[in-house]
């Protein structure tokens, strides 16, 4: 009985896993492409740093806080017009990726900023003292020095995104979380619910462990 249910579930589960990976991957890519520079910007424009700019820092900080304070499910709905514009549709995994990306960018940016703060100010100063340009300091000192922290931030972002992606179900986003809610929770199907939860647990564990491991390898401190 149990085995049969699981067997019947397999194709659905397979699609769901792929959908989750797809959504999370898109949002993660957006986080790296936009969130990383944003985090660097937040850091280098802060008081006492080499590109200090109070206005830019406050404005960026304010926008980041604004997006981060909106509960994801509201953001998801609020962004439907933007989603339509970018993805061409308001339903499906691609559509869900849009709001996931918007949520992931400021989230990751803050994590990047935090890991940059851990760099000894003296190291940055020594780079200023040798006459390096801001761009060189960012690419050659800041990012490499914060790499272990940035990788850990990426791990945290990935795991949070998997959680968020469960809510993407309301716009037909699909994914494992959606499967768990629709089949498991709404239909009281414990087998499906437990199976999907186990899949999620395993997925999260794998991501956390590999994230930690990579972070440790690049950490030369």
């Amino acid at each position, binding site marked *: 009985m149990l085995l049969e249910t699981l067997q019947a579930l397999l194709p659905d589960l397979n699609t769901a896993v792929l959908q989750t990976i797809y959504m999370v991957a898109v949002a993660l890519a957006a986080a790296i492409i936009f969130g990383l520079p944003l985090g660097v910007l937040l850091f280098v424009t802060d008081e006492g740093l080499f590109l200090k700019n109070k206005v830019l820092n406050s404005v960026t900080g304010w926008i980041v806080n604004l997006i981060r304070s909106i509960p994801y499910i509201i953001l998801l709905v609020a962004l439907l017009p933007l989603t339509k514009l970018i993805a061409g549709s308001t339903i499906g995994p691609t559509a869900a990726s849009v709001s996931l990306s918007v949520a992931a960018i400021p989230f990751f940016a803050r994590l990047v900023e935090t890991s940059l703060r851990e760099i000894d100010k003296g190291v940055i*100063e*020594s*780079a200023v003292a*040798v*006459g*390096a*340009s801001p761009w060189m300091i960012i690419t050659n000192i800041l990012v490499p020095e914060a790499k272990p922290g940035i990788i850990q931030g990426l791990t945290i972002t990935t795991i949070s995104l998997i959680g968020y992606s469960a809510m993407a179900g309301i716009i037909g986003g699909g994914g494992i979380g959606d499967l768990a809610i629709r089949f498991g929770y709404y239909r009281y199907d414990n087998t499906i619910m437990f199976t999907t939860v186990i899949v999620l647990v395993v997925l999260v564990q794998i991501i956390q462990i590999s994230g930690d491991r990579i972070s440790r390898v690049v950490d*030369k401190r």
Partner: protein
Amino acid sequence: MIEVNNLVKVYRSKKNKEVIGVNDVSLKIKEGEIYGIIGYSGAGKSSLIRCLNLLEIPTSGKVKIDGLELTKLSEKNLRKARQKIGMIFQHFYLASSKTVYENIAFALKAAGKSPKEIDARVKELLELVGLSDKLNQYPAQLSGGQKQRVGIARALANEPKVLLCDEATSALDPSTTKSILNLLKTINQKLGLTIVLITHEMEVVKEICHRLAVMQDGKVIEEGPVYDIFANPVQPLTKDFIQSVLQFNLPQQLIENRKGTIIKIQFKGAIAEESVVSDLFQQFKVKGNILHGKIEYIQDVPLGVFIMELTGEEKEVQRAINYIEERTQNLEVVEHVA
């Protein structure tokens, strides 16, 4: 080489209180000179040295290095100027994610050198600081002295004319300090580099500096050639610092139990090599007993101080004292027991 005119640096604390770091300091440092700035923490010496490459923007005043007025340069030209001003730090500040090689290469990259030039220069620098075998190690694998050597190599990468040392040896043990100071001395002689170093250790100044400025409360209170300052300190603080190197305090008990006259003689320069003391005993009928004595070599010039007890007939003792005073011009009667 370095000219500082009426430099003032005022910090504004969070409560909008003004804290004066550097208070109207003017200095002239000659080419090829090792210039020491000594002071206790909070004296403003760190602020001063950081104003020399504009890591700290002076509130007012001028900083001129090698004919360039730094305070007037554009961002881009200031970066160029900084490439010619090396700096090393108390805590080294190496990038932990970069190997020894990459740390030094970064400075060259910042100056826009080609990979080929960088490779040749890094190897040359590692040779100079004696770390050729540590090429691919990360800073975490190095000792403090080795890290400072990497710091020095990085600072020298773009063939600067000036090297600023911000408490460069304060985090090192005495023997490592000595080896780093020797390296700085070698660099100074070999490359004719002008070195400015700040420290709170008189020992460091004695070892390598040619001239010295003493700082207190943001001001330079005494300045001059190191030997002169050692021989004739004027300010109480300067005397304090010198006392830390040349300790001539006799135990109180020793002074109390003496019967003769206790005198302190200072021999400066050439006189230290003359036989003043033995001449004394041949000419006068006094007996001498050395209680304390030391000859320090500052920049290879001897500075001797002896504390002696003279006993004999009072007249004879007085004549002996006059004789020494005449020859050394520096005698102090510490205790006269008649």
